[in-house]
């Protein structure tokens, strides 16, 4: 789940490489993408080790079917415009940071180590994305409207982040995973503070019943995987 979230979001950001609205944001977004992919590698190397056999980080990343990916629907959302990119990033960062904070205390040493490493990077991500939410929200009429529209579109996907699946529940009980309720509190506070500063309204539209975490994805996922998996499917076992 963690690895898939980082990978799909990282992929979305990588689509912007060379296409960012300005040089600085282009570099920032692709750097964030790189951080996320670094985290993915740590998770997938660990997963491959546990899976054993012929599993490798690449087979886990590239050779699964869409139903086997456990990322949340939020990170699949397309790069509609810069406001959507920033909104998606901010909502995910605001969730990711308190999540990593908890995972640093995980009973699983490897997870704790990856979290301790990733959290340093995620702090930068949140700093970047929240500053842009404020800049756009509290900017011109046009930027404000676009930022609000992006949030209105993205917000219904937030509830899924906190809807506990049986696996998450079990992991939390074992002291390996995180307690989503505690994360929600930190998340809500952050959202409130940033939205207020950005003069944005917290969208009240009802949450969507999305189930990316159990493998049920939107139509976006097929397109993402087609691009992500093309090389490994066309040239099996190819290496850089």
């Amino acid at each position, binding site marked *: 789940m963690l690895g898939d979230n980082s990978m799909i979001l990282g992929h979305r950001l990588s689509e912007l490489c060379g296409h960012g609205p300005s040089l600085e944001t282009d*570099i*920032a977004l692709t750097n964030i993408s*790189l951080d996320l992919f670094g985290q993915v590698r740590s998770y997938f190397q660990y997963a491959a080790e546990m899976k054993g056999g012929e599993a490798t980080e690449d087979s886990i990343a590239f050779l699964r079917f869409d139903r086997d990916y456990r990322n949340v629907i939020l990170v699949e959302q397309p790069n509609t415009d810069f406001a959507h990119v920033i909104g998606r990033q901010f909502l995910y960062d605001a969730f990711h940071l308190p999540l990593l904070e908890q995972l640093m205390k995980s009973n699983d040493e490897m997870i704790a180590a990856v979290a*301790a*490493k990733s959290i*340093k990077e995620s702090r930068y991500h949140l700093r970047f994305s929240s500053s842009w939410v404020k800049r756009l929200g509290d900017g011109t009429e046009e930027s404000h409207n676009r930022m609000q529209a992006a949030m209105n579109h993205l917000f219904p996907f937030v509830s899924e982040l906190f809807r506990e699946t049986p696996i998450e529940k079990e992991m939390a009980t074992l002291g390996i995973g995180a307690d989503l309720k505690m994360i929600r509190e930190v998340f809500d506070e952050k959202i409130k503070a940033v939205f207020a500063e950005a003069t944005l309204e917290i969208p009240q539209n009802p949450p969507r019943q999305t189930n990316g975490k159990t493998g049920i994805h939107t139509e976006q996922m097929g397109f993402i995987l087609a691009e992500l998996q093309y090389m490994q499917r066309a040239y099996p076992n190819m290496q850089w």
Partner: protein
Amino acid sequence: MTSVQNKNIDNLLRELTDPEIPVLSIMDMGIVREVEANGKDLFIKITPTYSGCPAMDTIATDIKLKMDAAGYNTTVKLVLSPAWTTDWITENGRKELEKYGIAAPLDETSDKHALIDGKRIVKCTNCGSTNTKMVSQFGSTACKALFQCEDCLEPFDYFKCLK
């Protein structure tokens, strides 16, 4: 491991650099965490600066090639914990960075002032002026931010403090 051998290994490792920052040896970078020699068998633990740093694979390969060429049978292992911090860059490393045109990381508090509050405290690597402004929080690589000097107009990288 004898001290002579120890020194030999140390010197060899010192010749290896980060491919992105070719003036900085991996020893000065503080990414070599443990070196253990058992006869000709050599175990080296390194830690990544940033988890997505593409230089890590290259560095691991470089170490293996270099040490194997010197007659060792080398195993390089990547360890994540404890996570790397810019505090591990040595004094010599900081000097080399500055000479190369990358401003060395400030302490944590000053770093925040520079990156978030826009305080002009990062010293220009070209003329030494602190009349500098941040251009982008992310620079040519994830570990750096982009700055520009308002006096001599030189653009330069600042190595962000990572704690």
